[in-house]
């Protein structure tokens, strides 16, 4: 299940240089400019020698793919979970209360975070041959009871943190789809990244929701037809009128409440929301690719982590474009479907249909 380890040295992959130049302060941009001057051949040689997360794609000089994918199945993966108690303060990671192999603590937040991370590790290891968040056995560090009445859960670039909620809007965040969502943001980061703004940010969000739902389905042994396709089920406060935070089956219907308003997620490009808030609507427009994944699963049947999940995961490893639009992502999933199942295959044709149904021509 959750059992192996292998450390990694990292250099900055080329697309990350682009990101650093885009988003870094003056000193970071200067460093990034220096990296641009290093030729791609040198980078490829370095990647091969130093065990970077990104390596050249076979037969395509200068094109990088995630090493976690290029290396294929790991012989042995080790799960290293570390759950900390933030004790309602903001300091991270807080006090270590349950390390790998430790018995249950009796604190439901701690134990759900521990067990949930095990389910996520198991999904990535057994179904996608990925050894933890970075592909190389990175410890899965989580903090529960983060801050006081804190209505949020996040990935901060190195670890997950979960608040307890204020009891009014949220009652908890240690629900399996949420844990898998946050850990999957780490997987995105260590697979080349998707800039957290606009469409690429919504794709980052959607990948996290897709793998959040997938983890919950696998853990419950549910086929795509048995699943409820909800993200954050049961985490809302007791008086909130809503069943979850998001619905992949019917984006826009997860909640309708006097305090929260109406779930704002669209299911089609016709209803794409142009906004400056929420990093350009990353949690809003993610409804569109979320729904495409759901529709595709309905066409294929079976389990989400099988054919659909394999295509989505391969697309993430191959896309090599942190600024990807919905169209770029759809095209990458189609390439992945062709690579895995062949041109003209049912899997390819139904995928094109799913994207078309949400208003994306591919």
């Amino acid at each position, binding site marked *: 299940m959750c059992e192996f380890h292998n450390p990694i040295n990292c250099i900055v992959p080329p697309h*990350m240089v682009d*990101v*650093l130049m885009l*988003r*870094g*302060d003056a000193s*970071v941009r200067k460093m990034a400019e220096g990296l641009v001057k290093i030729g791609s051949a040198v980078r490829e040689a370095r990647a091969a020698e130093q065990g970077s997360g990104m390596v050249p794609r076979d037969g395509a000089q200068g094109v990088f793919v995630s090493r976690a994918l290029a290396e294929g199945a790991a012989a042995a993966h080790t799960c290293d979970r570390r759950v900390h108690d933030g004790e309602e*303060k*903001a*300091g*991270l990671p807080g006090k270590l209360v349950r390390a790998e192999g430790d018995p249950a603590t009796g604190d439901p937040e701690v134990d759900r975070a521990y067990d949930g991370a095990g389910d996520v590790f198991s999904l990535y290891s057994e179904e996608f041959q990925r050894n933890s968040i970075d592909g190389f056995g990175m410890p899965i560090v989580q903090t529960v009871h983060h*801050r*006081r*009445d*804190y*209505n*949020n*859960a*996040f*990935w*901060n*670039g*190195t670890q997950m943190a979960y608040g307890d909620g204020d009891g009014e*809007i*949220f009652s908890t*965040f240690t629900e399996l789809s*949420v844990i898998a*969502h*946050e850990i999957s*943001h*780490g997987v*995105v*980061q*260590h697979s080349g*990244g998707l800039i*957290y703004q606009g469409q690429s940010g919504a794709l*980052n*969000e959607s990948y*996290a929701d897709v793998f959040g739902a997938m983890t919950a389905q696998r853990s419950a042994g549910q086929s795509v037809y048995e699943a409820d396709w909800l993200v*954050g089920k049961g985490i809302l406060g007791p008086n909130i009128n809503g069943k979850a*935070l*998001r619905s992949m089956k019917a984006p826009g219907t997860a909640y309708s409440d006097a*305090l*929260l*308003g109406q779930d*704002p997620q669209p299911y089609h490009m016709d209803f794409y929301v142009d*906004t400056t*808030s*929420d*990093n350009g609507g*990353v*949690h*809003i427009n993610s409804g569109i690719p979320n729904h495409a994944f759901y529709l595709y699963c309905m066409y294929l049947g079976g389990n989400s982590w099988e054919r659909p999940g394999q295509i989505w995961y391969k697309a993430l490893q191959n896309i090599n474009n942190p600024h990807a639009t919905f169209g770029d992502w759809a095209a990458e999933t189609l390439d992945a479907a062709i690579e895995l199942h062949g041109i003209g295959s049912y899997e390819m044709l139904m995928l094109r249909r799913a994207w078309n149904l949400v208003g994306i021509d591919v």
Partner: protein
Amino acid sequence: MEPVLVGCVAMIIEVVSQGGFGGLTGVQVTRRAVVEDLPSAAQEQYCARFDPGHLSELAAVVRPLGAADTISYEITVVDEEGARHHFVLDETLLPAELLDLIDALPRAR
């Protein structure tokens, strides 16, 4: 006799939080206080941590690459002269001590 604090007792701090995992764009939590109304033991901390010069330095730092679902804080400080200083800061850029001070501010919603 209460110790007399010089410097920022009349300073007004307002913090509006938005964003996060929920994507609840319609829900903003506002916290607001005049420093002299806060517990006297904490007033110096508020003065130091919410000093506009200090916040400017924090605002110059880049948000960690890959971070997701973090909360954004819109912080407005009205100083002794009545000048308004406005900052938008991701929670990953704020020291833990400052975040704890935000959590202790009274809610104005």
